């Protein structure tokens, strides 16, 4: 198949079809690195990983290594991890505390705010030719600390982070806020990092709210590994949403989420029943959250992807993921596990053991996801396979703008039945990044889904 010069030609959203090329083509992959990962807001790490001046955590943006660091004055920076002299990685530790990044190659040194501290033999060899102020480590154009999560972009023209997040904010909030409804207050208790042979978009799309893939987790649902499994509860988590109306939302900036709204006067579903003390704690959190948030407490998260490659799991288990691109058919997954920083040790211990048996390459649930992503990528690489589009027509036309669900307005292009329209929305934006559209378009300008009907007429 010849490659359309416009990425938009890969995404036939009117018919709900998307070309397999976008998951396998090296050419498309290069364009993603150049046009998408250089512009979009990317999740880099969490404040709790760098609490003290001089603390750093080595992260990634796209294919590239960056250092998330708190400088001596306490200011957070994200710096490209590549020496300005010949490119050597100035930091090959995963995390730690330092006052200087010393390049192993020729020993240029940089302070924790990225500025050059020393160049060996500067006076004899460089004086008059090199202005030290111009050779700091490359720093991101914009950085935002949102409830402890650090996001960055290389594009100085990018809209500010909260504009970018848009109406996806309150969904992401549910993952970042305390279980008892206090805003923020999460901490990262560990990061899984692993490499799997699949295109990064399979993972990103899965977390947009692919509820339809539930059958692939049948084995774990049959045996029961959730927080109430010892009480004979099957499934991989407590079903706290059994009375809720689920909602699947697509947003102008390309994000997509799956959340739920409890009905008015709903009954609390007992959870974490393996241990009565844990169960009591979460019941308390539930009551307290209700007290703080009122009717809004009926709104609960499930999963979501913040465009392009940051996903979250909001409740059981609770984490943030980055799907770092490695190549067209390889991805590096990083999963940051979250708990309330001030939760009792017993709660943290209970949660971490649950997270570990559920999540990631050793997790009983997600192993089956990885198997699917791998072979879906592999089996789409063939010349014949590439001629045949993927089908995204599920629940096409079933979404509406800003509906009221169980008495609460849910903003976005929202479906109340299992759907793939978030993926279609995601790929519409994706194509516009690759086609280098301006920021107002990337934020949804001209997308008829977000134009109120009255205004359109």
């Amino acid at each position, binding site marked *: 198949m010849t490659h359309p010069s416009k990425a938009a030609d890969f995404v036939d959203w009117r018919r709900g079809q998307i070309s397999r090329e976008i998951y396998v083509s090296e050419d498309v992959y290069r364009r993603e690195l150049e046009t998408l990962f250089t512009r979009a807001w990317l999740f880099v790490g969490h404040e709790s990983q760098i609490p003290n001046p001089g603390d750093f955590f080595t992260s990634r943006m796209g294919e590239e290594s960056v250092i998330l660091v708190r400088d001596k004055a306490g200011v957070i920076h994200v710096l490209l991890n590549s020496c300005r002299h010949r490119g050597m990685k100035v930091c090959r*530790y995963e995390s*730690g505390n330092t006052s200087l990044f010393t390049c192993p190659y020729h020993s240029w040194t940089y302070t924790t705010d990225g500025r050059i501290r020393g160049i060996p033999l500067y006076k004899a060899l460089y004086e008059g030719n090199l202005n030290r102020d111009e050779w700091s480590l490359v720093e991101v154009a914009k950085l935002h600390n949102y409830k402890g999560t650090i996001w960055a972009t290389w594009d100085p023209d990018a809209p500010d982070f909260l504009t970018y997040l848009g109406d996806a904010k309150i969904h992401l909030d549910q993952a970042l806020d305390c279980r008892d409804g206090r805003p923020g207050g999460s901490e990262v*208790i560990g990061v*899984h990092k*692993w*490499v799997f042979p699949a295109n990064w978009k399979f993972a990103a799309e899965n977390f947009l709210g692919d509820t339809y893939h539930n059958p692939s987790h*049948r084995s774990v649902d049959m045996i029961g590994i959730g927080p109430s499994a010892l009480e004979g509860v099957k499934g991989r988590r407590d079903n706290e949403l059994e009375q809720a109306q689920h909602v699947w939302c697509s947003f102008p900036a390309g994000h997509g989420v799956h959340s739920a709204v409890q009905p008015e006067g709903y009954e609390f579903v007992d959870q974490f029943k393996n241990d009565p003390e844990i169960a009591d704690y979460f019941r308390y959190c539930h009551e307290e959250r209700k007290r703080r948030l009122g009717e809004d407490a009926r709104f609960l998260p499930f999963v979501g992807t913040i465009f392009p490659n940051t996903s979250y799991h909001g409740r059981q288990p609770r984490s943030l993921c980055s799907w770092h691109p490695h190549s067209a058919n390889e991805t590096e997954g990083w999963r940051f596990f979250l708990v309330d920083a001030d939760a009792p040790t017993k709660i943290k211990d209970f949660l*971490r053991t649950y997270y570990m048996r559920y999540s990631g390459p050793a997790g009983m649930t997600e192993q089956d996801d990885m198997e699917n992503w791998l072979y879906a990528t592999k089996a789409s690489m063939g010349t014949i396979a590439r001629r045949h589009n993927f089908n995204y027509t599920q629940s096409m036309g079933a979404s509406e703008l800003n509906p009221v669900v169980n008495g609460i307005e849910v903003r976005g292009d929202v479906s109340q039945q299992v759907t793939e329209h978030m993926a279609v929305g995601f790929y519409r934006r994706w194509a516009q990044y690759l086609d280098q559209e301006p920021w107002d378009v990337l934020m949804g300008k001209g997308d008829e889904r977000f134009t109120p009907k009255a205004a359109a007429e």
Partner: protein
Amino acid sequence: MDATVETPRILRDDAYYTLRREIEEFYYDEAECIDTRRFTEWLDMLHEDLRYFMPMRHNVKFGQHAERENTREDEGISWFNEDKWTVTKRVEQILTGVHYAEEPLSRTTHMITNVQVLQALPDAASAQEVHTSCRFHTYLNRVEYETYNFVGKRYDRLVRVDGDWKVRHRKILLDQNILQAKNLSTFF
């Protein structure tokens, strides 16, 4: 200061070598069970109070290895940190026949080498508990082209229950930082 952690060494006498052979034999039986997919039988070789632990390995500065190289059992996230209930669940999951990450089943070969007894309680001649160290090389191939090699060190505490050795505590040090595999769907 050396960056290594000291390994205890007990007297090499006849009782030691006899005990070591017995432990090696136990490990070979374990490997045989797993590689021939007799997973339920393998579970019987694990103590009821099992702790099965595989930390993640971090890249840290010289001098910080003892403190920071490996994630910890008592806090935070590791690859595995579980009890017998959870390991049993993993076996149950495979036996459903719809655990797609292991359906069709992978072909595995567990090789165990460099077995040493670090400690024998009360002594080698009448040991009821042993602390061991060994190296493993686990080869996994699944479906057609997928092949992984997991290599590392293992530190076990085995206790004798009614005459049979059981794994009470297993610490698996996989020699990788970012996991070079999509899954850890086999046992170690």
